[in-house]
């Protein structure tokens, strides 16, 4: 929309107000979805009952209190935190690799993390000398990190295009899936059942402890991204331009990849591979709010959290009394929605 010279500043302020409003609406959508997620289940609770149980647990019957606080809240919050973490990881991978198809899932980082966790689960193998209770997340992290570094090393080679990176990612996905199958082949029956859990992705095993760790990783990494918001945005103008602005492009890429590996590894270790959130969340955020990372980062997190939280709701209502694996739901529901968004979008971001 053309504007006279004197109103460009006002125009920008209006744009910023609109972005803040959109962030507010996303947060509101998340809150509604969270309440719905808490209300639904084999024991149906009204929205008011849920709010009461959250605000003053003593004022509701013990059954409702136990259902909300001990069963549903860790799962519902895990959906929010995992959705936010995976979407943030995807947003940053797309930014630093300058590639719309980049995400922990499509580039094999999630598959590598699953393989790392499966090694621990099936054979008790520890990739780092740590206590047994931290073995799974750290195994997942080590494998995710190694994969991220392979992708990083290749992306630095001359003549490597965005398409090459995606092809390499597909190769890595197949490699780790094959290795995972090998682990299952040699593992005991009990271990195989546990490994299969990862490949489907499920929030039902969420606990307050796992939720705390995943949240801690998200809370610890977020300020590091936010501090570099201008530099990360500059990367989207091309490496030369970012470097001309004084951004240390190589260092920024490497640091971001380490953080992305952390963000992708912990959710995978706790809830299994949940695909497409890392791909879809950032795309929705980009279409709504653009790529100024000061707004894009929170928008990506909120979009990812809303999608996974809604998927959790859908997983309960598809067949009453049964909870579908969340990874299956995100793929079945999320992808058609995503395709309709892309095809319907007038402004193509990529």
């Amino acid at each position, binding site marked *: 929309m053309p504007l006279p010279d004197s109103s*460009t500043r006002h125009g*920008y302020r209006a*744009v910023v107000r609109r972005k803040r409003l959109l962030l507010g609406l996303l947060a509101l959508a998340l809150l509604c979805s969270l309440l719905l997620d808490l209300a639904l289940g084999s024991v149906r609770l009204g929205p008011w009952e849920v709010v009461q149980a959250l605000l003053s647990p003593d004022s509701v019957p013990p059954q409702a209190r136990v259902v909300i606080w001990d069963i549903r809240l860790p799962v519902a919050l895990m959906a929010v935190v995992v959705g936010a973490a995976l979407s943030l990881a995807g947003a940053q991978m797309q930014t630093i690799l300058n590639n719309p198809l980049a995400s922990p899932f499509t580039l094999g980082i999630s598959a590598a993390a699953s393989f790392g966790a499966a090694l621990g689960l099936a054979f008790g193998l520890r990739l780092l000398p740590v206590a047994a209770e931290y073995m799974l997340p750290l195994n997942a992290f080590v494998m995710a990190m190694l994969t991220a570094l392979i992708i990083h090393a290749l992306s630095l080679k001359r003549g490597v295009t965005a398409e090459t990176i995606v092809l390499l990612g597909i190769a890595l996905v197949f490699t780790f899936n094959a290795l995972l199958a090998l682990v299952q082949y040699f593992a005991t029956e009990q271990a195989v059942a546990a490994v299969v859990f990862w490949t489907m992705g499920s929030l039902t095993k969420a606990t307050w402890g796992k939720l705390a760790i995943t949240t801690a990783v998200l809370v610890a990494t977020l300020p590091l991204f936010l501090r570099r918001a*201008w530099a990360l945005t500059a990367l*989207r*103008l091309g490496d030369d331009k970012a470097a001309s602005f004084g951004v240390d492009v190589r260092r920024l890429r490497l640091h971001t990849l380490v953080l992305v590996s952390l963000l992708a590894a912990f959710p995978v270790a706790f809830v299994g591979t949940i695909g497409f959130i890392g791909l879809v969340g950032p795309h929705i955020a980009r279409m709504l709010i653009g790529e100024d990372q000061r707004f894009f980062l929170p928008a990506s997190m909120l979009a990812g959290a809303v999608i996974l939280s809604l998927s959790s709701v859908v997983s309960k209502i598809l067949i009453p009394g049964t909870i579908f694996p969340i990874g299956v739901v995100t793929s079945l529901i999320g992808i058609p929605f995503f395709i309709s968004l892309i095809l319907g979008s007038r402004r193509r971001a990529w």
Partner: protein
Amino acid sequence: MVTLQLDGVGAFHGRHLTISGISTQAFAGGEVVAVIGPNAAGKSTLFKRMAGLLGGPGEVAVAGTQRGTSGICYMPQDPPTSAALTVYESVLLARKQNASWVVHDTDLAAVDEVLASLGIADIAFRSLGELSGGQRQLASLAQTLARDPEILLMDEPTSALDLHRQMQVLSLVRDLVRQRGILAFIALHDLNQVLRFADKVLVLAGGRSRGSGPCKEVITVDLLRQVYRVDARIECCSQGSSHVIIDGYSAAGGEIPHRAG
């Protein structure tokens, strides 16, 4: 006053030394220095070396800057981008790099001023991906100018612009250079624009310097024959300014058999 002098400067691309032994006199603030030479002469590489983005032997001696190396602003040749950013956001982004999150009124005023001076306020809220090549170049120029440069390094800033925009941009840069005491290096292919707008010239060919100094002393018929392999005249027009007129070119160097007209 800001000054810049090259002393035996070379640059590595990977393991290869692509430019070497480039030495010049000291250029001073308030001057427009055109960097000219045939394709693959090393102009972009030299700019990257001067901006500190490439390593190599020799010294880029800078003196008199207020902000150290952050006063050196390099404008690379812009590849198309698919970033979901508006022109306004990209200019603000350039200005706020290495600064806090908070956007002050002074930042917005500076962005407004740059957009208005380049005559692109009407595309302020267009997405970068929707711009034409020329508009993208103007947006890129706006990003560079918004950083308050002390030394400007501009790599072919007018290559995608129409005649009117070329005149507008080069006049604007020359005026800024004069008003603010900026030292500007501009890679250009149009030698008539060089003669019109530049005070001095640095000639590169094959990764080495082929001379530097005042335009009229350096740009000679002999130099054009040796560096560009063209047969040319340099003549004074009815309004008193010098113009390069190309008569023919050589296919392999030395002899100039192809004569136009």
